[in-house]
């Protein structure tokens, strides 16, 4: 155990942790939304994210960009970003909806036991990741350098890059927008009503099926954005990228209080930062082990997560 690594690199570790945490937080929203409404771990959400990482690569490929391309100028860069985001959002949203229609809705109609949902989700997850795995020959795919990471400002020995700023800002903006949507709009009120009590909500005229579809769609959209950020930050994607990050995202959702939107943000950022600190102290191979130990400790002392589980409450 060597604490000097952590002390010396405290600033950089924090900043990269925040950027990683922002991606995890966006990803975690999908778990939290679905769990808040259906009390169900959407195991296939990791593959929704995975499809997003490939969708934006595909869109950039249409422009003739690959990992060896030169970094574009500012004008085209904005266009590429927009196209990539839209492609990822569309594919991830569509994938999330498809999973809901194929794997969950038939079971819900028969009021199947909760475990059955988990198993179809596992089936869907396995199917998607394996098809992607076979299609890419299980190799990793490089990402074209759309945005070159450039230092913007430096505090002490901590350098903050434009990419990190972009990721954190985008995550915060999306979180704010989603929070406003769930807490402020008419559709969002429907979501909260179903989360609180599905049967009463249905009696009050809320279209339950539509709300559930909406929740999956929202989770998919957020995962799509997270996927583009992931591509830009990590620089490569692979058929099992969703699975690995999905475990982090789910941990983050539980950490913040699953079913709670703000909890997902807090949990994601906290997890990203703490993982980096742990990597600084114990070495990077212990990154995930540290986050799980943290999770167990938190659940033992505060089983509902940091902010509590409250999508259904009046104030989420």
């Amino acid at each position: 155990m060597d604490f000097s690594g952590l002390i010396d690199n405290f600033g950089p570790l924090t900043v990269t942790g925040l950027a990683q945490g922002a991606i995890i937080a966006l990803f975690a929203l999908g778990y939290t939304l679905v769990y808040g409404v259906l009390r169900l771990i959407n195991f296939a959400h990791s593959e929704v994210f995975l499809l997003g990482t490939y969708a934006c690569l595909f869109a950039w490929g249409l422009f003739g960009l690959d990992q060896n391309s030169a970094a574009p100028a500012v004008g085209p860069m904005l266009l590429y970003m927009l196209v990539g985001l839209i492609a990822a959002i569309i594919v991830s949203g569509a994938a999330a909806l498809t999973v809901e229609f194929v794997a969950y809705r038939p079971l819900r109609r028969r009021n199947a036991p909760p475990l059955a949902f988990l198993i179809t989700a596992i089936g869907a997850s396995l199917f998607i990741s394996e098809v992607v795995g076979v299609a890419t020959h299980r190799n990793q795919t490089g990402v074209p350098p759309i945005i070159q990471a450039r230092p913007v400002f430096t505090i002490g020995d901590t350098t903050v890059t434009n990419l990190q700023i972009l990721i954190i800002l985008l995550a915060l903006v999306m979180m704010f927008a989603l929070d406003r949507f769930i807490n402020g709009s008419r559709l969002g009120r429907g979501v909260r009503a179903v989360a609180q009590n599905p049967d009463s909500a249905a009696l009050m005229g809320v279209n339950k099926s539509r709300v559930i579809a909406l929740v999956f769609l929202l989770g998919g959209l957020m995962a799509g954005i997270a996927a583009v950020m992931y591509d830009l930050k990590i620089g490569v994607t692979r058929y099992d990228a969703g699975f690995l990050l999905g475990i982090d995202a789910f941990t983050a959702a539980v950490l913040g209080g699953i079913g709670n939107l703000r909890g997902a943000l807090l949990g994601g950022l906290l997890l990203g930062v703490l993982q980096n600190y742990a990597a600084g102290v114990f070495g990077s191979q212990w990154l995930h082990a540290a986050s799980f130990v943290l999770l167990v400790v938190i659940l033992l002392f505060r089983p509902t997560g940091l902010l509590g589980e409250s999508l259904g409450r009046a104030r989420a």
Partner: protein
Amino acid sequence: MSEKASFRSSGGVRGWFGRQPWYIRGVVVLLAAVAAYLLPYVGDVPLIGPQIVTEGIDWPSALFNMSYYVLLALGLNVVVGYAGLLDLGYVGFFAVGAYGTALLTSPDSILYEDTGWKWLMAVPAALVLTMIAGVILGWPTLRLRGDYLAIVTLGFAEIIRIVATSTTTLRGDRGFASIPHPPGSWGGEPIFGVTDAIPYFWLGLTVIILVILGVRNLDRSRVGRSWLAIREDEEAAEVMGVRTFKYKLWAFAIGAFIGGLGGVLFAGEQSFINSQTFVLQFSILVLAGVVMGGSGNMAGAILGGVLISYIPDRLRGLSFGDTDLYEYRFAIFGAAIILIMVLRPQGLIPSRRRAMELKDREKEVAPQ
């Protein structure tokens, strides 16, 4: 018990079976066991044989794989099916069993100088180790609610894998080689050799039968009734005086023990293990098998265990048009899981009680 009564009055194979006198039931069970031991020769049966044993399959190895998958499914069935605890990291116990054996017996192990044990000597030690691991994991986590338990157990398996990958004692990718095979010889030749997997299958099958007998007795005892009560309504069980924590811990320890058995057998057959063997997808696969087969029912768990190991093997050497189906085995498997669960959410061979519950639930559905 009402469950037994419903067996007798119901139709179908199980209803018929339940109505027979004890000696006929005994003969049927015995015949089934003998048939299971003859499975390695099923390829020689005309008509059916070639359908089951296709050319691409190494049938004895496939059978051995089935045997430890079934063992894991039976163990997980105790945890998930009987006690109703969602364990996503079951492969962790499998790994502890295998690594326990490897550490005590392999020449690569740092303990080898002191121990250098034979396989059989390592078995009880490795099993005690897995049970301890089960208790260590269960003690802090069993107070958690269902979904949290799932994620924590997932984390446990991941930590085991990370420890195996990153510590020098457990050797990561390099793994442990030359783990001794089980003992015994027949006419000068060792029974458990390198080339022939059939004896390993028989060994696995014997262990499976012992486990089935043990678990069946447990299920019919005070412990089994406590598990049932906990699964159905934990708070009510607690109020009625069931010591829920104690029995949940028992379920965990027994599940861990059976998983460890699988690991010990696996290490003995493969004679080499490394950190790549114990990926998380593995335990998810076993869980899918248990629920697909029918959780809470041992026949279901066995069928599930057989399916998850056989379906991918069966696709070996098959092609559809130009695409090699074996390459897509897990994708096809994923689609098959969805299909089975959508058509039969209670599992292929559900426990009677579960099936009846589900019928009740279906009636409760509000029209959508």
